[in-house]
């Protein structure tokens, strides 16, 4: 099998499985979705070998050249996120398998939508032009919103509606920008020629649209509700991959369109990221529900990733891209653990956390290990990210950024330690109640596996960083 057919399989295997599960009787859907889910990592292994050898894989469909034809391109940055997607998808499988067994409410709709979301994510990471990116982002938004509504509560439906309306507004802004780019340059290719007032306007419009999708402050309002009311497996995938797809698009488009006044704009976006870091952490600290703490922490961490725009050198690119890996795995682990806690305790209110370390030790350990990555303590993946970003700021004498990155770990520690202190050191310990059935061990262990993975990637980051270092010129120019 050639690398290009593996590339095609990455999108079309889940797409075909989606169509098959959609027409199949509901009780077969879960079993039919499984082969597609398991095929992913195998395809990725093959592609990883090729990327390590040649750096990037490109593909043009049917001999139709862009802009009318469709072109795909995979590089190390896309590959990292594809791996996060595959690992989180695998780890979320036991949770989804258990929660959406045939006959349970929502199980018929879940599996086709889950595959549609997977196909959309892979497509967005492969798209080599602005318009295909739009189509993929729409597919992701629609599938994600539908997956949130599976939990048929008022909170879930209201949050899904907010997400949908803002998501469509975001893609509208984005397409407006794409239209202007095409009118100005006659091309939709991602590394398009820049400069000029129209291109600057187009860039700002596209950025606003993508910032809504990535939930970057101040366009984050849909995120806490959407993430906290989705089922565990869905929240894991949303937080680990979906926002980051838009974030990667922001990086790519930003560095591909050098416009006049870019330095000022980069400074502005960096400051926006800094505000997001501290505001998100503060809100995470104030929340009274565990899932909302985790959701707000995402907004805080995305602020850190936005610092790549002002820092803009290879070390910063390596750090921020590596952060996608560490943060994605940790966040998915947290949401899976939170879903288990809800399943057993019936609520994720932090009032129920005291004594959790005895009742649900695996979940408590997962919270602690994933928390280490969020704070960025060594030897976690989060530490590697912060270290590389600090290095980059140091190289450029950026004292402001140096200070902000160092402080971001401190504010993350505030909300993580608050949760851990409540879980392990609170004097009130409630008696063990067995009113709710415990989810199977595999569900707890898969969350722990993700948390461990987020820690272990920080032990030996060199090969990944090297791969990213070689891809850096292709992205940040």
């Amino acid at each position, binding site marked *: 099998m050639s690398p290009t057919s593996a590339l095609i399989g990455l999108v079309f295997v889940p797409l075909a499985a989606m169509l098959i599960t959609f027409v199949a009787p509901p009780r077969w859907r879960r079993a039919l979705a499984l082969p597609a889910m398991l095929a992913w990592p195998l395809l990725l292994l093959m592609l990883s070998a090729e990327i390590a050898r040649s750096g990037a894989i490109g593909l043009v469909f049917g001999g139709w050249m862009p802009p009318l034809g469709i072109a795909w391109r995979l590089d190390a940055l896309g590959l990292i996120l594809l791996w996060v997607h595959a690992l989180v998808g695998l780890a979320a499988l036991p949770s989804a398998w258990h929660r959406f067994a045939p006959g349970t409410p929502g199980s018929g709709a879940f599996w086709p939508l889950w595959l549609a979301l997977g196909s959309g994510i892979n497509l967005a990471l492969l798209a080599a032009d602005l318009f295909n990116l739009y189509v993929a982002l729409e597919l992701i938004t629609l599938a994600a919103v539908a997956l949130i509504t599976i939990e048929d509560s008022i909170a879930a439906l*209201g949050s899904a509606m907010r997400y949908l309306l803002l998501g469509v507004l975001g893609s509208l802004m984005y397409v407006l920008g794409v239209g202007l780019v095409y009118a100005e340059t006659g091309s939709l290719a991602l590394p398009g020629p820049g400069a000029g007032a129209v291109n600057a306007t187009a860039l700002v419009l596209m950025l606003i649209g993508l910032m809504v999708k990535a939930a970057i402050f101040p366009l984050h309002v849909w995120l806490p509700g959407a993430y906290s009311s989705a089922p565990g497996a869905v929240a894991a995938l949303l937080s680990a991959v979906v926002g980051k797809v838009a974030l990667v698009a922001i990086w790519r488009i930003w560095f591909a369109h050098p416009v006049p006044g870019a330095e000022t704009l980069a400074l502005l976006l960096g400051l926006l990221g800094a505000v997001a870091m501290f505001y998100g952490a503060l809100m995470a600290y104030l929340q009274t529900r565990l899932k909302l703490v985790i959701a707000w922490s995402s907004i805080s961490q995305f602020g850190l990733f936005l610092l790549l725009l002002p820092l803009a050198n290879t070390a910063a690119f390596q750090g921020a891209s590596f952060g996608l890996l560490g943060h994605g795995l940790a966040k998915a682990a947290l949401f899976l653990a939170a879903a288990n806690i809800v399943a057993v305790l019936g609520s994720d209110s932090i009032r129920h956390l005291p004594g959790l370390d005895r009742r649900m030790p695996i979940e408590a350990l997962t919270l602690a290990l994933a928390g280490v990555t969020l704070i960025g303590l060594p030897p976690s993946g989060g530490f590697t990210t912060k270290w590389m970003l600090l290095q980059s700021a140091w190289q450029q004498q950026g004292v402001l950024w140096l200070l902000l990155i160092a402080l971001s770990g401190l504010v993350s520690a505030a909300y993580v330690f608050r949760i851990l202190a409540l879980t392990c050191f609170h004097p009130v310990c409630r008696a063990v109640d067995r009113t709710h059935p415990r989810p199977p061990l595999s569900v707890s262990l898969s969350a722990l596996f993700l948390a461990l993975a987020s820690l272990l990637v920080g032990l030996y980051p060199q090969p990944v960083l090297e791969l990213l270092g070689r891809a850096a010129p292709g992205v940040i120019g």
Partner: protein
Amino acid sequence: MNPAVYVLVAAAIFGIGLHGLLVARHVMRKLLALNLMLSALFLLLIVVPASIDGRPDPVPQALVLTGIVIAVSTTAFALALMVRLFRRQGHASIHPDLDPTLIGQRRATKRKEGDR
């Protein structure tokens, strides 16, 4: 006719839609506003490249066609979601006070809001 007229009309419709989307509380009104904005966008996409090139350009038309398909399916999905929201909460409006994820949760959801 001068293409600038189309551009100005598109900008005006876009502005009206944006205003409606931000101000209206009922989901139906928000969706209508969103569709207005989409129409303006498609108008702009067709007109702007043609005004530069002169002869008809197939690419923007392909983009708009794809855009229309996506817009129709998104609207249909949003309408279905609106009906479900209406059945569950008794009204189909969205308002910041009704966001259950804000810190003072639950308190706000009890306060019933009439449809606007």
